């Protein structure tokens, strides 16, 4: 990783990751706690939360403000101390649609409401704690972590520290800063799954995270250096890469006896267990073509504007702001959009930054998209079928298996955003 400038993808294609080279050396910059936070009630995959506070209520930092009685629900907590100013629909930058949110105005204090005591020797108690702490997969998927940790018959726990996206490096920084804490979180996860086989999948070189590696060795955690590739960061592809196991379509890693969790999620578990803190803040990578990468730490519900201004930048210099991965995240329509629990990256681009898809040319059927596709589907033929509304052909070409990694668009010499057609194709099949 030290001098890493490219990832190698299927078909021999290379992905430029120079924007994050060396950025793991930059410590986290803590964004000031904002005066007002916008906390979206749905920050997980699953059923939505219902607000459990009303306008005018006083709330403490860490106090639950949204919940629902359902297994696939993760409660949501206030990230500041203050009063509820409003409950309204706001734009969710990740789901790219409007969602219910609680607007909280800070009163200047930061009084904490801690999580209750849990018996960390009992598996069920760990799972309960993880749920109550509102922990979701922090790699970007936002899958409820307690659901993963309650899986049965698990043989292997894989900690995904691969951080494959070209603009994200915050996980590596966290591994440098919090090695002992991460290992404690991992051990708790393993305990809840009743497995001793823990594999730490990383792309770092030997000696890059010496302290973490030393502690992991002491605890019998096996470190596996995974081939530097963007697509291998995806959970199922990582399992295939490491163990040769192919998770069947429509199934999940626990169905093959493996649970994969992100390294930042392990740190969140540690904080819940030993600091009694719900998931209120997280580390992320900020990139702009003016500054390069900065590692930041922000409270849930902080707006994009607050982050950018907190870094001393003028928001009006930018015309595109992307949340999450530059390969998979949308650019948002407003700088007032809030950051969520699983926003691992913020990228602000000036109008001068290249817009490679501005002038898309007709498909030349070169087949690059088919070659690079990590799940072996045919993006170009799917695009053709999608344009023709041919649902039969969309099914024939297995559009539903697309993992939306966008590699097809990335390599397309005609600079076509094939990803858009793959989504639309999926929607047409699911209708």
């Amino acid at each position: 990783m030290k001098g890493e400038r490219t990832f190698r993808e299927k078909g021999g294609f290379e992905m430029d990751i120079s924007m994050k080279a060396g950025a793991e050396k930059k410590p986290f910059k803590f964004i000031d706690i904002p005066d007002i936070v916008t906390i979206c009630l749905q920050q997980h995959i699953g059923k939505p939360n219902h607000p459990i506070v009303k306008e005018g209520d006083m709330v403490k930092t860490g106090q639950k403000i949204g919940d629902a009685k359902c297994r696939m629900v993760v409660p949501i907590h206030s990230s500041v101390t203050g009063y509820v100013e409003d409950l309204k629909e706001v734009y969710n930058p990740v789901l790219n649609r409007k969602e219910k949110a609680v607007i909280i105005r800070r009163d200047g204090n930061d009084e904490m409401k801690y999580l209750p005591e849990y018996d960390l020797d009992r598996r069920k108690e760990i799972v309960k704690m993880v749920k109550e702490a509102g922990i979701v997969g922090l790699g970007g998927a936002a899958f409820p972590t307690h659901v993963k940790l309650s899986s049965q018959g698990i043989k292997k726990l894989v900690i995904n520290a691969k951080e494959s996206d070209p603009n994200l490096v915050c996980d590596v920084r966290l591994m440098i800063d919090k090695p002992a804490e991460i290992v404690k979180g991992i051990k708790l996860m393993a305990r809840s799954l009743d497995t001793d086989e823990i594999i730490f999948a990383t792309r770092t070189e030997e000696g890059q995270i010496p302290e973490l590696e030393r502690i992991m060795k002491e605890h019998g955690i096996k470190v596996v250096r995974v081939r530097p590739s963007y697509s291998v960061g995806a959970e199922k592809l990582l399992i295939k890469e490491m163990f040769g196991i192919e998770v069947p379509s429509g199934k999940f890693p626990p169905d093959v006896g493996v649970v994969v969790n992100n390294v930042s999620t392990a740190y969140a578990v540690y904080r819940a267990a030993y600091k009694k803190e719900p998931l209120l803040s997280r580390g992320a990578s900020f990139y702009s073509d003016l500054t390069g990468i900065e590692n930041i730490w922000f409270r849930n519900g902080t707006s994009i504007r607050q982050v950018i201004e907190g870094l001393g930048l003028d928001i009006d210099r930018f015309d595109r702001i992307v949340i999450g991965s530059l390969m998979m995240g949308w650019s948002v329509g407003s700088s007032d959009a809030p950051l969520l629990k699983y926003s691992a990256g913020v990228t602000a681009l000036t109008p001068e930054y290249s817009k490679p898809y501005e002038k898309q040319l007709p498909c030349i059927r070169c087949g690059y998209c088919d070659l690079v596709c990590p799940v072996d589907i045919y993006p170009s033929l799917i695009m053709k079928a999608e344009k023709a509304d041919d649902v039969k052909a969309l099914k024939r070409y297995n559009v539903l298996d697309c993992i939306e990694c966008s590699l097809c668009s990335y390599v397309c010499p005609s600079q076509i955003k094939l990803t858009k057609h793959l989504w639309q194709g999926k929607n047409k099949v699911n209708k």
Partner: protein
Amino acid sequence: MKIAGRLKKEKPPHLHSGFTKNELMLKTFLFMCIIGFASIIVMGADAFVHILVALGTALVVHATINSYQTWKGVEPTYSSPASVLVAGMIVALAMPIASPFEITAGVSLLTVLVFKYGQGRFFKRKYLNPAAAAKVLLLGLLSVMYIIEEPLKEGMIFHPHHYDYNFMSAEGFEASMWIFSRESIFGAELSATQSLLFWQTHGWIGGGSSIVVLIVGIVAAYLLKYKWRIIVSTILTMTVLSAAIGLYLGCDPILRIAFHVFTGSVIFFTFFMATEPQTTPMTHGGQYAFGVCLAILTFVLQLYNVLGGSIIALVLLNIFTDKFDLLLIKKPFGHGKEVRT
């Protein structure tokens, strides 16, 4: 002017590899320039003139259309001449060295005007390989001239004397190889097999030195990611078929392979025409099947002495490209493979 707080909402991705169609075309052109240079060394000044004529014609047509589109206020179809240069070079290298220059100019004109710009304009994409289709069209017209006395003098590229050879017999085949056995490099006499591999002054300009085509073709296919399955299946099928017929008829199978695989109309054609992206299948299975069918059809047409057999075969198969895309669709990740738990 951007409204404060309002930003551009865009779908992912926001990054691109930077490798564009123009770069792909330009690099393809440069690879073909190496082959063209080798052919000039082997075949002499005529090859150079053919290349200049084909490229010049292609560029003139491109510049004329481009100017017309600009004048009409229409976005030019091709912002750069890179792909036109590729088309022009393919025409040049796919012409027989004995062909008159005006025929080369005619094929280049048809290629760019009718089968490159025209197909794109009227059918939204290219269904037929432009250079191959132009050559087939012109060959067809010129074949009518077969009835004319001394047709070569009339400027045709159809060589009726080829009909005197019988490739279906060992004697007929070996007798026809005289044309390749008269080659020599710096005084050293070459056998027909050696000539077919290293130094051909007969046939397609692009086949001047098959070994150069083979090396450049492999490097280009690897670096520029051509549809290699078509190349492999075509060459393998041709090799198997030629070895089989050689053994069956009792002639030298090596010479038979050298002839059927290493003439310019096969070796150059396979690397740089049969892999033309728009007109060939996308699915891997489809590409293999396409290559096998192309080889079989080309081989049969070669046996019957049909000049331009490979390009006729290619144009015929281009028509069915979409059908080939229905063949042997690979199983995606997570489908039908046994899971070890």
